């Protein structure tokens, strides 16, 4: 039965500089109980579509045309006060950032109850129902949790509360706008599973917005692919993933690395970058980046045409050649063999980093040590790439910042290129900066907006000791090295896209001719189509220049693609380390296994078991659990298996599985799934 029918929905933002057509003639239908994905890159109009359905487009946006029929009623023509009764009762919404979507000054219970009270429930009834909902979304101790404030809950728990609010009035349609993007994979798995459970038990329909093909593959029945404000393809997930009907979908699918994919080849990158919605290309919005584009594509816009029973595509090429396979067939460059040295160029042993703020509080108490890194050792050899993975907050950034001297090691030893640089002073600082450089996560924040690219890179060259007369030449060379035109040197950062800025960040890091690059999530802020470009660039640089990488990332598949060895970190400690193949194919530590199990893969043919591998979230480094730090969440730990008190009392040491593969667990041999 059709629940929602959207046709020709168009939303425009009226800006002083001109109108932006953020959503352009979007049409789709949604059946009861169906989970539909909307996937697309940043700025493709996903969120605006969702908000348009709710009639909650922000100023200066306006829905200029279209129909949104919910159970046959056109929502766009309802008066605002009637629309208000529909919001929260028939359509509910879950937003991206659980940190910001809950009101910090009201208890979560009050916020859930409010959703009921505004739709006519009495206070008592609202409270009862709220407690029910808290239990339903899996929040422990509903009674006491009811009185808690959002900041007292972890991100995952907060997102559950938001979902509880959405479910409060038994809405038929739940719109979830990237509900897991801000969460760790382990938590994402929990939330996705919860949504599916709810769909099954309540029979609600879900619109799932995401930019992650893996998520679509995991939970959706059908999906829309959006590009530049338009739907370019829609259809059943199983069909789209096997035989995409639009070149963009195809490119998107092949650009993401997979844990299981062939790592000997470079990634397929989509050239160029996503379109600027304020300045869309004239014809098909994808045509400038499309390898199949013909002249027709440049001049007029293709309509979304039904191709199969459920498949639609907006592509002139597909219209002509019915059987065309859009998957890239170009042979990719093979990765080169590279040299890995034998002495370590970076080694840290048993280091601690205290991030406990030393600021005095209102009553002058000194805060105790918070060891975000607590007794960690690892080493990197010249030319080697060590991947570092772990949930958010486990101390990855803290470790890398301590290596370059932004944080201080409070204990342990750090040796870089044969020199002990644990104490950062004068000469050591110099030594470190000439050997180790850093590439940051956020390309928008890592460049000074007030300085031209030439100034930023020139400054780096100058401290590296390049003579003033050579600076300009070297800067130009660096720009070319990272694939940018040297004539852009005089521009300011705002003139560049995210991917280009990240290239500039890399160029600046290379200015000092370092031997090691620390890459702190260098691609997680980028669109998937750009990610591949940067990963390929990094790979090329590494192999050409013989760099060693400390590569930090959330995305396990990206890490596998790039790394020689991988270290898995949990709450300030390494729990498992080994060659990439060992870790991914033969994980030993229960945490590693859980991480791998939680990572969604853009594969529809072999759907994974969706039961989340890990419960709860990472504890605070201020109060780490005694003994094994992982025990409070460990599926084979004392909480799940009897007689494992050793985990509470004793810290596990490393046990070698093979030469390079080690893990720290009291029960390594246990092979539970």
């Amino acid at each position, binding site marked *: 039965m059709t629940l929602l029918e959207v046709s020709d929905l168009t939303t425009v933002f009226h800006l002083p500089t001109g109108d932006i057509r953020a959503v352009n003639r979007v049409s789709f239908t949604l059946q009861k109980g169906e989970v539909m994905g909307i996937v697309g890159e940043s700025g493709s109009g996903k969120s605006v579509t969702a908000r348009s359905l709710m009639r*909650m487009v922000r100023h200066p946006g306006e829905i200029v045309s279209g129909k949104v029929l919910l159970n046959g009623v056109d929502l766009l023509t309802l008066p605002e006060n009637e629309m208000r009764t*529909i919001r*929260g009762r028939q359509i509910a*919404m879950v937003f991206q950032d659980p940190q910001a979507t809950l*009101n910090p000054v*009201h208890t979560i219970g009050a916020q859930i109850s409010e959703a009921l009270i*505004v739709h006519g429930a009495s206070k008592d009834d609202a409270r009862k129902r709220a407690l029910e909902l808290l239990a339903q979304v899996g929040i422990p101790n509903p009674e006491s949790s009811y009185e808690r404030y959002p*900041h007292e809950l972890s991100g995952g728990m907060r997102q559950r509360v938001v979902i509880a609010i959405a479910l409060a009035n038994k809405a038929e349609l739940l719109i979830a706008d990237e509900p897991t993007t801000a969460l760790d994979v382990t938590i994402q798995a929990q939330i996705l599973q919860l949504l599916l459970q709810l769909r099954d038990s309540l029979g609600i329909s879900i619109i799932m917005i995401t930019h992650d093909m893996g998520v679509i593959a995991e939970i959706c029945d059908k999906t829309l692919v959006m590009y530049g404000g338009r739907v370019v393809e829609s259809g059943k997930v199983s069909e789209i993933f096997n035989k995409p009907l639009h070149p963009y979908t195809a490119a998107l699918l092949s650009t993401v690395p997979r844990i299981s994919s062939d790592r000997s080849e470079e990634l397929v990158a989509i050239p160029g970058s996503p379109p600027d919605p304020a300045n869309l290309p004239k014809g098909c919005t994808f045509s400038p980046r499309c390898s199949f584009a013909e002249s027709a594509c440049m001049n007029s816009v293709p309509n979304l045409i039904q191709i199969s029973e459920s498949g639609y595509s907006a592509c002139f090429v597909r219209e002509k050649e019915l059987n065309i396979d859009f998957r890239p067939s170009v042979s990719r460059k093979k990765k080169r063999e590279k040299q890995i040295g034998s002495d370590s160029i970076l080694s840290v042993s048993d280091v601690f980093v205290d991030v406990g703020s030393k600021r005095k509080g209102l009553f002058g108490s000194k805060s105790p040590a918070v060891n975000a890194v607590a007794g960690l050792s690892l080493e990197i050899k010249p030319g080697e790439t060590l991947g570092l993975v772990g949930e958010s907050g486990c101390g990855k950034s803290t470790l890398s910042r301590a290596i370059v001297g932004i944080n201080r090691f409070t204990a342990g030893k750090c040796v870089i290129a044969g020199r002990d640089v644990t104490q950062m002073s004068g000469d050591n600082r110099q030594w470190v900066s000439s050997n180790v450089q850093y590439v940051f996560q956020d390309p928008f924040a890592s460049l000074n907006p007030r300085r031209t690219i030439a100034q930023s890179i020139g400054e780096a060259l100058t401290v590296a000791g390049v003579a003033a007369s050579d600076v300009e030449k070297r800067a130009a060379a660096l720009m070319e090295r990272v694939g940018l035109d040297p004539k852009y040197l005089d521009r300011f950062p705002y003139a560049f896209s995210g991917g280009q800025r990240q290239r500039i960040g890399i160029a600046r890091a290379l200015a000092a001719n370092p031997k090691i690059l620390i890459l702190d999530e260098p691609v997680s802020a980028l669109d998937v189509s750009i990610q591949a470009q940067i990963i390929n660039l990094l790979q090329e640089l590494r192999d050409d220049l013989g760099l060693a990488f400390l590569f930090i990332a959330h995305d396990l598949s990206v890490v596998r693609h790039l790394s020689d060895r991988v270290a898995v970190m949990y709450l300030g400690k390494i729990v498992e380390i080994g060659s990439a193949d060992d870790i991914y194919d033969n994980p030993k530590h229960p945490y590693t296994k859980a991480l791998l199990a939680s990572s969604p893969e853009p594969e529809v043919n072999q759907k994974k078991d969706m039961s989340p591998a890990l419960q709860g979230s990472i504890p605070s480094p201020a109060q780490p659990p005694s003994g094994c730090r992982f025990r409070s969440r460990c599926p084979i730990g004392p909480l799940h298996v009897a007689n494992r008190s050793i985990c509470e009392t004793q810290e596990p040491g490393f046990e070698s599985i093979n030469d390079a593969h080690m893990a720290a667990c009291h029960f390594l041999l246990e092979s539970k799934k």
Partner: protein
Amino acid sequence: MIFSSIAVFLLPRLAPGDPALAIAGGDATEEAIAEIRETLGLDRSLVEQYWVWITGVFRGDFGDSYLYRLPVSELISGRFQSTIELAVSATIFLIIFGVGMGVLGGTTRSRKVKSVLDVVVSFLLSTPPFLIGIVLIILLGVVWQVLPISGEVNFIDDPATGFKYLLLPSFALSLSSSAVVARLIQTQMISVRGEDFVDLAKAKGVPPSRIAFRHVLRNSLGASIVAVGLQVGHLLSGTIIIESLFARNGLGSLTINAVLTRDYLVLQAVVLFAIAIAIAIQLISEILLAALDPRVRLGSE
């Protein structure tokens, strides 16, 4: 605080002239002045004078006014009520006008209301309080004679009349501060309006008025409290001019007089007192802030 006390002690003593002159007057002879200086203990070394004073302060004894020959604490407590009445009523008006205008500006959709408010607030912001006071005096006290403009009546003895006497000076004192508060609350509310949780509330189906108060205003209160706290400090400083304008005998006029007559001990005590009040206000606003915002509550524990 020790640092403040030294500064407070030294600053007025740097000025030419001393209390002996204020007592004896300009026609006196140098010998007479010297004699008075001796009886007042002003001939002793600064260190000694400071020591005598500061040890007294710790015992709760602020010394005697040179000019009035009365204990400073008595002088201050005699004037205290007047200033407190003024400050408290001005604070109340500050909150009423400031929060009122701020909330109106932060919630109204009407362009007309917004621009009228903007004009009013802008003018209040660019007019010094004493000028507002003078305008009020002329309009309401002299031209129309609706409210008393001079003097005071003890509020506790006769609340109704006391209140009438308080109205104009506290208006004059609070209006420009309330514009500051209004401006702040308005911007704060507009920025809170852009927060995601407001969207969530809307998505829940919460009506606009409830969003405005339960979500937007509630989250803007913290900033308002900080703003009000700061402005109360300014109010206290502003009492100095307003009191003399409206012929009220509070601490403000005592202070000016103390500076001009070099009545050091009075000045020292008043300033210490003012600093103590400033600290108290800050503490109060922190406590209120903690009461309002659960995040702060947790942080201070």
